[in-house]
């Protein structure tokens, strides 16, 4: 990885719920930030700079909300930035913040990502009707369900694979008190019998809409060496983007994701992700994106992702647990979801994942987020040991 060593030394997140009616927008981000600062053993005055991220401003109807949130996040008199890269924003915000430390610009950076979707409605926010654009009358699921069908066709995956992911991630969430969905009775039958929303996607194959925030404190090597709790060292971080549509675009297995993973693994010295990661937290808002991203991230050959899922390899007790926190399928405050992935990966290698802690062997974990029409990717590798 380019630049100075950087570590995650504080992680905080809110409980994710359908509607956090008990807090304002400032109160929501504050809750996550306070927990991260406590974890890092810091107070507001220790922080050099603040980087926030979220998805479209229209979700909450507050334009450029870093302005309103400056006081709540202790940024007064300091540098503050706001990143927006669609669904990948939680990941890219983490990376922008980490680069401030890697570049030697700052020693201690607080980064927070959030979404308070209950202020409006995510379906509206993601598809505000715009003149000149062909209306997406089928909603967000209507964008991705056809790509899932194409994946199924290409790979020959049987129809129940997505349902297996839907069950696995919801069961994992039972060990995570902050997860939005807790569905103790979920099984394959409940998923198969849930309402068919966007054939081939059923209700339980789809993420919820959540209010929530995630915060990380990033520190330089010197700061991390003195941190009260174990750091998660960043071994690599990468972002890639490609246009929404163009001739020859592979929308199912996008080049941007493959390039991003390749760059990331080169930085982190990963040659076999399935063997070298103890866990992966990957943006899976629709169940089928687990097998699709298994392939895109090089955990297996193209076309084989569903076989890993079917064999239970990605379960918490499998050889490569994916989304032991319950993942996006269990909590989805859109702007925060990417940072939740990055932060949950860090918690695993710090040994601080509570009841959903995986067994640490290599001490490395992957965080991934994607957004737009599967065109924006951000990823990092965190490790228990210094890179």
């Amino acid at each position: 990885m380019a630049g100075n060593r950087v570590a995650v030394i504080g992680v905080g997140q809110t409980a994710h719920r359908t509607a956090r009616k008990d807090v304002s927008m400032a109160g929501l981000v504050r809750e996550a930030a306070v927990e991260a600062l406590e974890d890092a053993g810091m107070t507001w005055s220790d922080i050099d700079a603040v980087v926030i991220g979220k998805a479209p401003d229209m979700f909450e109807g507050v334009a450029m909300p870093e302005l309103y949130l400056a006081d709540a996040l202790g940024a007064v008199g300091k540098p503050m930035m706001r990143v927006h890269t669609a669904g990948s924003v939680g990941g890219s915000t983490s990376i922008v913040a980490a680069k401030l430390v890697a570049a030697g610009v700052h020693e201690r950076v607080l980064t927070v990502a959030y979404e308070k979707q209950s202020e409006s409605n995510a379906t509206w926010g993601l598809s505000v009707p715009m003149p000149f654009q062909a209306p997406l009358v089928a909603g967000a699921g209507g964008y991705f369900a056809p790509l899932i069908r194409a994946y199924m066709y290409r790979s020959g995956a049987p129809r129940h694979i997505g349902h297996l992911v839907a069950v696995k991630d919801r069961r994992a969430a039972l060990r995570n008190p902050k997860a939005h969905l807790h569905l103790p009775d979920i099984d394959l039958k409940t998923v198969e019998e849930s309402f068919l929303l966007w054939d081939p996607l059923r209700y339980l194959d789809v993420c919820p809409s959540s209010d929530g925030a995630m915060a990380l404190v990033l520190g330089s090597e010197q700061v991390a060496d003195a941190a009260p709790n174990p750091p998660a060292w960043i071994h690599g971080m990468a972002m890639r983007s490609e246009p929404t549509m163009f001739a020859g675009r592979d929308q199912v297995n996008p080049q941007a994701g493959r390039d991003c993973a390749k760059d990331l693994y080169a930085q982190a010295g990963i040659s076999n992700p399935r063997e070298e990661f103890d866990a992966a937290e990957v943006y899976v808002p629709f169940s089928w994106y687990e097998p699709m991203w298994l392939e895109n991230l090089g955990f297996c050959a193209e076309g084989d992702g569903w076989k890993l899922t079917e064999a239970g390899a990605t379960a918490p007790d499998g050889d490569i647990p994916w989304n032991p926190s319950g993942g996006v399928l269990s909590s989805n405050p859109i702007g925060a979801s990417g940072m939740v992935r990055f932060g949950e990966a860090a918690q695993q290698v710090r040994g601080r994942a509570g009841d959903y802690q995986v067994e640490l062997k290599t001490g490395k974990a992957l965080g991934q987020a994607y957004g737009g029409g599967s065109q924006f990717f951000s990823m990092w590798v965190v490790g228990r040991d210094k890179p």
Partner: protein
Amino acid sequence: MRDVAVVSFAYSAVAKDVLHNEVEMIVPVVREAVAVSGIPREDLGFVCSGSLDYLQGGPFAFVMGLDGVGAWPPKRESHVEMDAAWALYEAWVAIQTGEVDSALVYGFGKSSTGDLHEIMTLQTDPYYVAPLWPSMVDMAALQATAYLDAAGFDETNLAEVAVRSQRNGTSNAHAVRAAGDATIDSVLAEPVTHHPLRDADIAPITDGAAAIVLAAGDLARSVCARPAWIRGIEHRIEAHGLGVRDLTRSESTELAARAAGIDEFPLDVVELHAQFSHEELILADALRLDGETDINPSGGPLAANPVMSTGLIRIGEVARRITAGEAERGLAHASSGPCLQQNLVCILEAE
């Protein structure tokens, strides 16, 4: 810190562009900035942009914007929902890590499609202020009243800024408001629209885009005869509430300028992101400009204000003068938020 320079700059500005969509506005400026930089598009290490969804009234403006960049094969790319000056800052940081040696930065937006001044109300506290709908001009006027009252100034001081901006604008092909014959009397003869401000004190509605290419060290030297080196770039934010801030000064500009090293650099030229006459006066105080420095020779935002690019253009204007040999060093300023809540200072210098 690595030496990083602005090696090319291009921008466009018109009062109302009814002939091009946002992507069509981006294409020519990106193309020009890339061509002038001499760095092949595919070799640019990083791309970062600044835009605001509320200008187009729909989400994901930057997603479409990417169609004008040529992000194939896939690019290292990022976006801030801020003026593109902050996109430049993000790109500068990326170069500092050593991961990349060059970056394309761009901003774009059409202020003419909606009611810009009303849209910016949505930047304010959503419980106490936004429901009252003070426009961005109303809020600026509150600052102007407070500043004039505290400084013992009057509207003539505002008019002086407006006149110089209009006159300077005549040398700027992109100016949407310029008048070589503007005088204090002619400005003061205009009606006050937002006490104590006149139209001449308020940046004109402008559509446009801007692009800058940054390059590090030897790469910059190899592609540009006289790169404009970034000697310091810093930004700071203030508290949000207008009623808790001292509106008569810009504390965050003072902090950013000091951190960027203003005291070490005598300045030939300064470009300020002042969207209102009084903002220039407040910023000049904050930067302790002594009257020798050339302020907004381009005419500044009062001549052309393509929102989301205006701050980036300040950096480009200073860099352009350095590259052209017209200045040795200068300071560019960008701002965000009501009444100069957040400010960025970038000090540039020739070799």
